[in-house]
């Protein structure tokens, strides 16, 4: 009983479909021309039928066959209709494929709808009841999101802001908007990947930046403040809360804010804040140097950064003009200078990369940044001329009064050094630009030195100035060198405390200084002698003098004095008699660095060879004149001797050196096989060079390296040890360590 009912249901189920599908007076076309078909199946079937027809006898009744159908497909957006032919046994997927080849719409984005149903791919046209002259609708898709909660939060915020723009009064609007924004930012994935990019794309796709800017320019009361606080909250969160890996994504959103706010006004405070945030984010964000079509995901284009450079350059030029006319004017803002540097860095990097690949790329590709390159050069010339005028004006204002008086501080002057640094960076990109810059600096040498002494800070980098040291003087060089030391603190809690017994001065000082962590010494020293009440700078200065006298005492076998100038020292090659001599050289390096840091003159000086080794330079024959005058004289005679005489082997010299060590003489070869190699006129230069290297460099290399290591421990950045000595002359160091020039000449 159950089976017949099911059959009846099945039959009734399809009956209305059949009734619905009957087209009143519909046309059924027969035997269409096969040449117009683009479907291979149709061609095949039709060819078969034609062969059958030809095989039949004339006049016979033709066999009935299924016919192809003609139907309409209404397209996606414009709504125009196309005619398609197919066979009833074709699948819906084949129709999709033909639409793809015809219109270029991907298969998975097409939806064909007929009589209220969406056709499935695996069905045939007959199963879908498609008849002649059927009307199919092609519809696209608008998909939902992978991050529904983020979309909800952003939608709530956008809707709330829309209501505020329409003039509605919302209770506690600012708190709500900020809360929603914080919720959105807290959802952000912490690792930079496609998911994070999708998250920030939600912020852009929902037009949140445009809506907030619309609120900012809204005429209703309170809306401007609400928008201002919300945008600043977003910018601060981008800079502080989110990880650096996400700064590339944030930079694109902030760039959108900048573009919108620039229309409000170039001097709008919110725009300036937004621009600064964008500049700081660029330090970690990736920058793409391609054109607009190469829109790499998560990267900011150079073309987007360029307008900011123009803006800030114009602002700087205008402010420099003001500072020329009126010296008491404020001059460029520190924010402007900082932003200018931040935006200039990726632009210069891009131009440098373009120039690197210039030879290997086609000519037209080089023009990607042609506009930027041209503009930057013009900007360089303008800024250099402007700075030149500023420095001249500064020189004039100083001419009428004493150079070293401290009453003439003008606020505009503090930014000249930063601008000069940027000009130096730009000059590297163009030929001939560096000569112009150093020409200006040479002419304005005295003013430049004054700027360095007054305004150079520890946080800046000034290594560029010392590439051409002739534009500096002792005062400026000393100032730059002292910038490498940490600042001595005033708080007693942070000082490194020492309690020294005078009778055990060297031993106890070694324990306090050599065993300490370098960081604990950066704050400074607090010195006290046992059984004495005195403390303060005087006691510290006395301690430095006593310790240096002990370290450089020849009886301790650490350093050797020069024969002609007993105040100059170099490491003792025989210091290895003391088992801890290398530790003591580190200790000595630290003490010298601490003395310089505390500006205490300890009454000793370095030999030139020792100084040059600390600077990482090469030792020549003229450099050993003070350390060993006898060796210097001997080498000079060897080099000046007549060639015939030295070739006759009258001196009996070979490539060896005799060393007297602890009462016994030892022969050291200067090079492999040196014993059997006679010195002649051709190799005497090499002989002298090897002799000096062995005598002054090789024998004390360990001592020098340990001294340098100890010295570097006290610097803020230990990598700057060589640079410290390179930035000074030997005379500069003499003045800093030993004392005044007058004392030196005595």
């Amino acid at each position, binding site marked *: 009983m159950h089976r017949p009912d099911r059959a009846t*249901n099945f039959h009734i189920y399809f009956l209305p479909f059949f009734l619905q599908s009957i087209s009143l007076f519909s*046309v*059924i076309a027969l035997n269409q021309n096969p040449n117009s078909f683009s479907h291979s199946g149709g061609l095949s079937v039709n060819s078969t039928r034609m062969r059958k027809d030809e095989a039949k006898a004339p006049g016979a009744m033709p066999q009935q066959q299924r016919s192809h159908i003609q139907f309409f497909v209404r397209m996606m957006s414009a709504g125009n209709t196309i005619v398609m032919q197919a066979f009833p046994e074709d699948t819906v997927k084949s129709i999709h494929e033909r639409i793809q080849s015809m219109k270029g719409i991907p298969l998975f984005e097409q939806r064909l709808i007929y*009589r209220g149903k969406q056709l499935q791919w695996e069905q045939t046209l007959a199963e879908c009841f498609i008849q002649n002259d*059927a*009307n199919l609708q092609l519809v696209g898709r608008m998909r939902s999101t992978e991050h529904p909660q983020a*979309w909800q939060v952003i939608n709530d915020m956008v809707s709330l802001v829309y209501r505020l723009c329409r003039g509605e009064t919302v209770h506690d609007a600012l708190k709500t908007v900020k809360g929603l924004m914080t919720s959105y930012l807290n959802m952000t994935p912490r690792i930079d990947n496609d998911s994070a990019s999708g998250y920030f794309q939600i912020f852009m796709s929902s037009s949140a930046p445009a809506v907030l800017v619309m609120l900012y320019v809204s005429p209703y009361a309170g809306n401007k403040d609400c928008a201002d606080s919300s945008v600043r909250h977003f910018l601060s969160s981008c800079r502080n809360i989110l990880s650096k890996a996400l700064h590339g994504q944030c930079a694109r959103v902030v760039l959108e804010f900048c573009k919108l706010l620039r229309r409000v006004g170039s001097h709008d405070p919110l725009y300036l804040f937004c621009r600064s945030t964008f500049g700081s984010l660029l330090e970690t964000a990736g920058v793409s140097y391609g054109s607009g079509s190469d829109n790499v995901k998560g990267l900011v284009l150079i073309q987007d950064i360029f307008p900011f450079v123009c803006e800030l350059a114009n602002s700087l030029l205008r402010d420099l003009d003001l500072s020329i006319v009126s010296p008491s004017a404020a001059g460029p803002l520190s924010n402007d200078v900082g932003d200018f540097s931040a935006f200039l860095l990726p632009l210069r990097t891009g131009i440098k990369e373009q120039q690197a690949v210039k030879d290997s790329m086609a000519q037209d590709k080089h023009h990607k940044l042609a506009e930027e390159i041209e503009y930057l050069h013009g900007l360089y010339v303008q800024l250099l001329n402007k700075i030149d005028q500023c420095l001249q004006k500064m020189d004039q204002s100083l001419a009428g009064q004493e150079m070293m008086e401290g009453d003439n501080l003008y606020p505009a002057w503090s930014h000249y050094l930063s601008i000069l640094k940027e000009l130096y960076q730009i000059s590297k990109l163009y030929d001939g630009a560096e000569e112009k810059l150093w020409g200006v600096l040479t002419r304005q040498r005295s003013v430049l030195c004054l700027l360095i002494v007054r305004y150079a800070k520890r946080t800046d980098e000034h290594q560029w100035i010392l590439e051409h040291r002739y534009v500096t003087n002792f005062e400026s060089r000393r100032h730059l060198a002292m910038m490498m030391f940490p600042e001595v603190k005033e708080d007693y809690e942070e000082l490194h405390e020492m309690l020294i017994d005078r009778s055990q001065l060297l031993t106890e000082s070694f324990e306090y200084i050599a065993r300490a962590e370098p960081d604990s010494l950066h704050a400074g020293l607090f010195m006290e002698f046992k059984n004495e009440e005195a403390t303060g700078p005087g006691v510290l200065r006395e301690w430095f003098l006593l310790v240096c006298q002990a370290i450089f005492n020849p009886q301790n076998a650490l350093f050797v004095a020069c024969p002609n100038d007993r105040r100059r020292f170099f490491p003792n090659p025989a210091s290895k008699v003391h088992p801890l001599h290398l530790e003591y050289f580190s200790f000595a390096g630290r003490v010298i660095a601490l003395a310089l840091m505390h500006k205490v003159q300890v009454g000793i000086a370095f030999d030139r060879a020792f100084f040059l080794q600390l600077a990482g330079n090469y030792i020549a024959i003229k450099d050993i004149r003070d350390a060993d005058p006898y060796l210097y004289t001997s080498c000079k005679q060897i080099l000046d001797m007549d060639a015939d005489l030295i070739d006759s082997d009258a001196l009996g010299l070979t490539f060896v050196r005799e060393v007297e060590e602890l009462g016994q003489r030892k022969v050291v070869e200067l090079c492999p096989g040196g014993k059997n190699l006679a010195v002649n006129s051709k190799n005497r230069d090499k002989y002298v060079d090897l002799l000096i290297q062995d005598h002054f460099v090789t024998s004390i290399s360990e001592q020098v390296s340990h001294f340098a290591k100890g010295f570097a421990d006290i610097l803020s950045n230990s990598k700057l040890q060589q640079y410290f000595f390179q930035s000074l002359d030997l005379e500069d160091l003499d003045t800093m360590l030993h004392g005044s020039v007058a004392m030196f000449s005595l």
Partner: protein
Amino acid sequence: MRFDENAMNWIGATVGDLVGTVGAILSLKDTKVAIPFTFAADNSSFEKSLFVPGLQNLQNNCFLNVVLQALASCFCFQSFLHGVIGECGSKDLDENMPLALALATLLEELSSVSAERVTLSPRKMMLAMSNNIPNFNLTSQQDAAEAFLHLLCLLREEFGGCYAPKMSSLADIFASNNRILTPIQRDCQSEQERWQQLFLGPFDGILGSRLTCQSCSSLISINFEHFDCLPLSPVLSDTSSMRVGCTLVDCLKQFIVAEHVENYRCSHCWHNAAIKYLSIMEGNEVELKMIRRCSDPEICNCRKMYNLDKLPWSNRFSHTLKQLSIARCPRILCIQLKRVYMNVFGELVKLQGHISFPLILDVLSFMTTRLGVKTQDIDVQSLPLNLKYNRRNFFPNHSDLQSEISTLKFSGLYGATREQINSDGVIDDGFVSSTNGQALHSDTVFPCSGSSESIHSDTHMQSIDQVDVSCNLVPQETCLYQLVSVVEHFGKAGSGHYTVYRSVRVESSEDVSDDYLNQTPMRWFCISDSQVHAVSVEGVLSSEASLLFYERIPRN
């Protein structure tokens, strides 16, 4: 209890089978379906705290949540669901109709208004839905209109499986569907009506399509197709942006405008050309008579005649016009605005912009009540058609109708054949002669108003008596729809978020049953998954709509 009442109503309907009775019952049902809130309307502080339930977003299912919320605002859809479930109440509901049962329960909960924020879960419904759709993944990013079509399709499959005909004999069923011009029995009509009510529900709209060839002045075909969702294209100013000030009525006008279809084969034109060709070439008289009498497309063998091998033919000689119109208005009109298009770079782009839509929509001007072809240009040939129809309308009789039907059949049953162009002069001359000598055939479209619920057989051959009755019907002046839901999409074509604006009726204490629609205020809510807040009518009308749901305003 409500199910029993609905079943009793439907039994009464089948017995009575009168338009007045059905109208009365429908009015009564609408009154009962209204939300029974009795507090005063002027209590604004209490009204502001009212909320409708939100739906939980389980995984990327905001596209389904907006469809469910939109359907919850369609009142006749819920009554339709309850009616179907009530009629099949004797069977095992959980086993046979899990989706309909879960959907009815969820929509009933979504229709309740309370002072507290409530969040419902569509999980049960999604489970029932995902078991039957192999290609539609509910846990990934999807399209809301696509989810809507799949939902209706699944409901019909469930309803079709539970349908029990009252007549147990197959012979009776077959007899009732004969294409003989005999009076249709009442029982058979009620069976048909009952099935249509169960199967189609309130989404029972029908699109009419007329295909005419202006070259041979013949009506090629008339098609009637059911639609659930009307896909309209926005009016574009150029290929990539929407025209400013585009309205929904503009989209509807663009939808029903007559469109020139290229590359369509008109078999009537081919046969006329073949006759002319053979006449000019002095072909065989037997073949000529055979072509003239060709009336069966299934066995049409004219293309294979020996003398027609060299007949030059191209589809460009046919000037085919196709025009759409609404043949029957559904009780719930769902309109989808097709915002996705393919740009010149091969990317799918979403058309942004606001398309203004009215709260009250009149679709009478887009229905099949006029004659002739509506084009933007004046079509001269449509005037004789109108005149001929007006003349014939005054004297309806049996013999004329029979002759008309026979002529229409004959003129539409020709097929086209191969295309080659040998002599343009001969073809041009032939066509001029053919056009002059061809008599114009009248248009025999019957006025099929969607509001005539007593006539359901739009796709059948109608009897002479029915034709007489329908010709005498006075056409209605308006066909009005009320906006009940708006679905909005944020973002791009590949990824975005769906929200919905829906309306809820809150009755005032002064309930007047005669014109209660005028008294009942419509309150609108904006729902983003589980976030619900009240909005104004202006806020709803200013949204960028993707889906619009209109419900028909019943006429008393």
